C-alpha cells in the first residue's frame, strides 16, 4: 500500500459523502419539480444529516443492542469501501488490484443485509416484516445482477473493473454481443431501484404499510449512518453503471486532446455529468412515475421478466464473443 493509496482512502469517502448528498438533493429537487412542487433546497440532505447527528439515539428495550448499533456502522463502512473500487473517469480506483466486480457485488449486498439484520435485531414487528421483505427482494434481484456481472466476465475474460474501464465495452463487441450488452444494461437499470430501496421497489420500507419497515426503530446517529450509506450507495451504483456501460471519455466523444490538470478536471466533471444522467434516469424518474409493488409482484418481475432479459443478454454476449 503506497502513501498515495492512503491519501485516496481518506479523500474518496469525504468526496463520496459530499457527492452522494448533493445527488440526493438534486434528485429530491427534480422529483419535486416533476410533481409541480418547489422542492427542498439542494443542500437539504446535508442539513438532514446534521440534524440527525444532533438527535438522541434511542435503542428499543427489546432490541439486541450490539447488533442494532453495529449494523449502521457496517452499512456505512461497506458503502465507503465500495467507493474505493470505482474508477472516477480517468482517475484510477484507489483499491485497484485488491478486488474486482465480485467484491462490488458483495459490498452492495452487504448493505442490504446489514439493514435487514438491523431490522430483525430491533425487535419491532414493523421492522421484522420489513426485514423479511428485504430478504425476499434480495433473493429476487441478486440473480439478474449476477448475470450482468457474468456477462462482463465473458466479454473481458476478467472481473477487474480497471480493465473494463480502460477499454470501452462498445468498442470490443460484435453487433450481436452489442445487443446482448444493451439487454444487460436494461436489466441492471431495472435492478437499480430495488438495490437502492427506491420506489417502486421500496417495499421493505413502505411508509404507509409498515412505517418505514427496517428503519422504524432507528434514530439519531444510527439513522444518520444509514442515511449516508444510502446516499453514497445510490451514487456508487450509478457510477458503476457509468463505468460498465457509458465509458466514453470527454476527449473521445468530442475529439479534443487534453493534458495535465485540465484533463483530470474536465474528465472528472464529465464523469459526474454521466453519473447524474444515469441517476436521474434510473432513480429519480422511475421513483416519481411508479407506485409501490407488492412483494410477490416485485419478486415475479425480477424472477421472470428481468431475469429473462438478463439471460437473453448473456446468451447473446456468449454467442457474439
Amino acid at each position, binding site marked *: 500500500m503506497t502513501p498515495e493509496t492512503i491519501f485516496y482512502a481518506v479523500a474518496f469517502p469525504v468526496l463520496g459523502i459530499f457527492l452522494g448528498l448533493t445527488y440526493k438533493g438534486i434528485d429530491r429537487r427534480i422529483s419535486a419539480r416533476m410533481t*409541480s412542487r418547489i422542492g427542498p433546497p439542494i443542500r437539504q440532505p446535508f442539513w438532514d444529516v446534521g440534524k440527525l447527528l444532533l438527535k438522541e439515539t434511542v435503542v428499543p428495550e427489546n432490541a439486541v443492542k450490539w447488533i442494532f448499533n453495529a449494523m449502521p456502522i457496517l452499512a456505512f463502512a461497506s458503502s465507503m469501501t465500495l467507493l474505493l473500487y470505482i474508477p472516477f473517469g480517468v482517475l484510477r480506483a484507489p483499491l485497484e488490484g485488491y478486488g474486482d466486480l465480485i467484491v462490488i457485488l458483495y459490498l452492495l449486498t452487504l448493505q442490504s443485509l446489514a439493514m435487514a439484520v438491523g431490522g430483525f435485531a430491533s425487535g419491532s414487528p414493523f421492522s421484522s416484516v420489513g426485514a423479511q421483505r428485504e430478504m425476499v427482494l434480495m433473493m429476487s434481484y441478486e440473480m439478474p445482477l449476477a448475470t450482468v456481472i457474468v456477462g462482463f466476465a465473458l466479454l473481458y475474460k476478467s472481473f477487474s473493473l480497471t480493465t473494463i474501464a480502460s477499454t470501452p465495452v462498445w468498442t470490443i463487441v460484435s453487433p450481436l454481443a452489442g445487443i446482448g450488452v444493451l439487454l444487460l444494461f436494461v436489466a441492471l437499470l431495472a435492478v437499480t431501484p430495488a438495490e437502492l430501496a427506491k420506489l417502486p421497489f421500496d417495499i421493505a420500507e413502505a411508509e404507509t404499510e409498515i412505517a418505514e419497515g427496517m428503519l422504524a426503530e432507528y434514530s439519531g446517529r444510527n439513522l444518520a449512518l444509514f442515511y449516508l450509506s444510502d446516499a453514497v450507495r445510490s451514487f456508487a451504483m450509478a457510477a458503476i453503471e457509468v463505468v460498465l456501460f457509458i465509458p466514453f471519455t470527454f476527449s473521445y466523444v468530442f475529439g479534443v486532446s487534453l493534458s495535465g490538470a485540465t484533463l483530470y478536471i474536465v474528465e472528472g466533471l464529465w464523469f459526474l455529468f454521466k453519473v447524474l444522467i444515469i441517476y436521474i434516469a434510473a432513480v429519480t424518474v422511475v421513483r416519481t412515475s411508479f407506485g409501490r409493488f407488492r412483494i410477490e409482484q416485485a419478486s415475479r418481475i425480477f424472477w421472470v421478466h428481468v431475469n429473462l432479459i438478463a439471460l437473453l443478454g448473456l446468451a447473446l454476449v456468449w454467442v457474439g464473443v
Partner: protein
Amino acid sequence: MPKTAYYIPIGPIHPALKEPIRVEAEVEGEKIVKVDVKRGFAHRGIEYMGMKRNAIQTLYLSERICGICSISHPYAFVITAEKALGIEAPPRAQYIRPIIAELERIHSHLLWLGVIAHEMGFDSLLFWIWKGREKVLDLLELLTGNRINYSVFMIGGVRRDLKESHIKALKDMITYYWEFTEKMKEIILSDPVYKARTRGVAQLSKELALKLNVVGPTARAAGLRMDIRQDMPYDAYADIDVRAVVPQDIVGEARGDAYDITMVRIYEIEQSLDIIEYCVDNLPEGKILAIPNYVALLAKIRRTKGEAIGAHEAPRGEVVHYLKFDGRDGPSVWKVIAPSYNNINSWAPLLLGAEVADIPIVVAYIDPCMCCNDRVALLKTPEGKVLGYEYIHRKAVEKTKRIEREVRK
C-alpha cells in the same frame, strides 16, 4: 421453537391512518391470520353538546362533526329540522344546496383518489390529483367564503345567494373537470401498477356487502343500486332523477374491489358535474330563506313539538340525522349516523387472509372518517368488563380531588 406469527398494531397513530383507530393484526409472514378493529379514539360528545345549544348553533356544530365533508351533516340536519318544523326551503335555495353538496362530493372524491394513490406509494399521482382539487376548493371559497366549513346552509334555506359571476365560474369549473376526469380515467384506470395493486384487493361480494350493511360508494362498487339521492330524493334531486353509479353499468360487471370503487368514484365526479350543470341552468328566481329572521325561526322551533328523521347522500355514503324538538329552542334529542360506521364493518372480513401490503388499501378504500363514526366510547377493564357511567364519574371526581389536594400542598 421460532415464533412464526407476529402481532402488528396498526394505529391509533400510523402513517396509513389519517385519524385515530386501531387495527390489531396477527400475521404469519405476509399473511394476516387474525384481526381485530377497535374504535372510539375520536369520540367528542358532539351530540350531547348539540342538545345544550339552540338549533342554529347546533347547525354550526354539525358542520364540525366531519373534518372533510362539512356540508353532509348540515344538509341532513336542515332536512330533518325542516321536516320536524313543517317548513320548506324556497325553490332557489333548493337548487343552490345541491350545487354546494355536489361541489363537496367532487373535492371529497378527489381527496380520496389522492389518498389511495399515496397509500400505494404513488406520490406523484397524489400531487397531480390534489393540484386538480385546488380548483374546486377555490370555487367553494368564492361561493361561500371558506375552503372548508362553508357555513352556508340554514334551516329553511341557504345564507348566501349565487351571483352571475359565480355562475360563470361554475361553468368554467365544469369544463375544467370534464377534461380532468377524462385524464384521470386514462392515468388511473389504465395504469398497470394501479391495476396490479387494486384488482382483487378488498373484494366485497354483493352478499357480503348486504350482510355487512355497507353504504355509499362501497356498496355501489359491489353492485348494489343504492343512493339516497335516488331512493329518497330531496330538494332539486327530485327533479333531476339521479341514478346510482354502479360498475355493471360502466364495464358490465361489478367485482366490488378497490379498482371498482375507484371507477365508481371517478364516474360519480362526472355525475356531480351533470347535477351542478342542471341546477345552474334551471336555477329558479326568488328568495333564499323561508324564515329570514333568526329570532322568529328560533321562536318557531320553541313552539314546535315533534320529531323527524332525514338523510343525505354524503360522499362516503348515507348520513342519517334524527331530531326531536320539545319546547326548547334547540333539539332535545339529536342522533347522528355517519356512513363510516357501517363501512368500517367491512375491514375485519376483508383483512382476514389478506397481505400486509393490502392493509393501507383495505383501510383507505372505504374513505373512513373516524370523527364521524365515533358516537360512543366504552371503557373496559383488562378482563373485558364494561365500566359503568357512575363508576367512571366517581373515579373522575376522586382524581380531581386528589389533584386539588396535591396542588394545595
